């Protein structure tokens, strides 16, 4: 988790409308940490609901956690360092996400921090989580 994401989840206990969204996002991230069952969407071109999804362009292997809420909630962007190891790097309110910028910015953040160590590149969805997950498909 990057400092900016940590700052966001740390603001979850405040008494504000933004904190409501931060708290929902924190609960979702903890859902992952606690190994609860989650849904992962592998194909960015499939418009199916999921907790975590690979985003376009798929070649970047950037994923987002999708916290729903007022005005769309919050998206937390990051990449996997290995199976089960998600590194949360950036976040944005859903209705303010620039989809051309955010995935690239996320990968740039990774490179800035990890230098030459690339993100983990799995060949399919099952390469990313080891337990308690299902794959979100268009047919349900």
């Amino acid at each position, binding site marked *: 988790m990057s400092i900016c994401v940590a700052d966001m989840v740390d603001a979850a206990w405040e008494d504000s409308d933004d904190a409501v969204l931060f708290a929902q996002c924190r*609960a979702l991230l903890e859902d992952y940490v606690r190994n609860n069952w989650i849904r992962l969407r592998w194909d960015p071109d499939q418009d199916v609901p999921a907790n975590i999804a690979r985003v376009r362009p798929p070649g970047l292997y950037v994923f987002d956690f999708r916290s729903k809420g007022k005005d769309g909630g919050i998206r937390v962007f990051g990449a996997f360092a290995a199976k089960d190891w998600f590194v949360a790097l950036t976040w944005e309110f859903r209705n303010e996400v620039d989809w051309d910028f955010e995935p690239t910015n996320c990968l740039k953040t990774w490179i800035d921090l990890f230098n030459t160590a690339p993100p983990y590149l799995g060949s399919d969805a099952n390469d990313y989580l080891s337990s308690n997950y299902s794959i979100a498909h268009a047919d349900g």
Partner: protein
Amino acid sequence: MTTSRQITPLPMPTGDEPISKGVLSYMSARYQTNVHSLVLEEFERSGMTSAQVARRLRMDPGQLARLLGNPSNMTLDTLSGLLFAIAGKEPDTNALKYGEMDARQNEFKEVHVSSADIIQPVIMRETKIVFLLVNAPFKTEPQEIGMYKRAIAIERGAMQFLSLGTNSFWSGPTNMIKQRYEKVEVA
């Protein structure tokens, strides 16, 4: 000097102090994620197709996909209907103290360790811990430990937020740390 930080734990209710909007939102979202997880688990165990479940509930398949896809779509009505349709079950109604459900409690203690050992990739793999380094380039050689200033990580499967300082880190219960870092020199 340590540069590590802690994620602020949930403030528990005390006296007449009003509970913040954020805390109430968190508790609601946490309940929804727990319920969502329960339904997904039952669905996966059942071996049913979503089309079968949708037919049992006379529900549009797209609506079912939305229910299964995100915790915030789960209401008490949909929970009871889904559990019954999927597995002939009803939800348990026990009230637990916060954190009791988690196998490992979300409590933070400082533990001094050999940072050089922690950040070796082999240790990272064994412990399933990811370190995100801030204001420092990523190096894998132990002798580069001086480059590391700050890190925070989350591990799946344990209620845990970690941050790494130059010679210390914060994490969950001490017994878990000892167990997970038994191969690491504790300073």
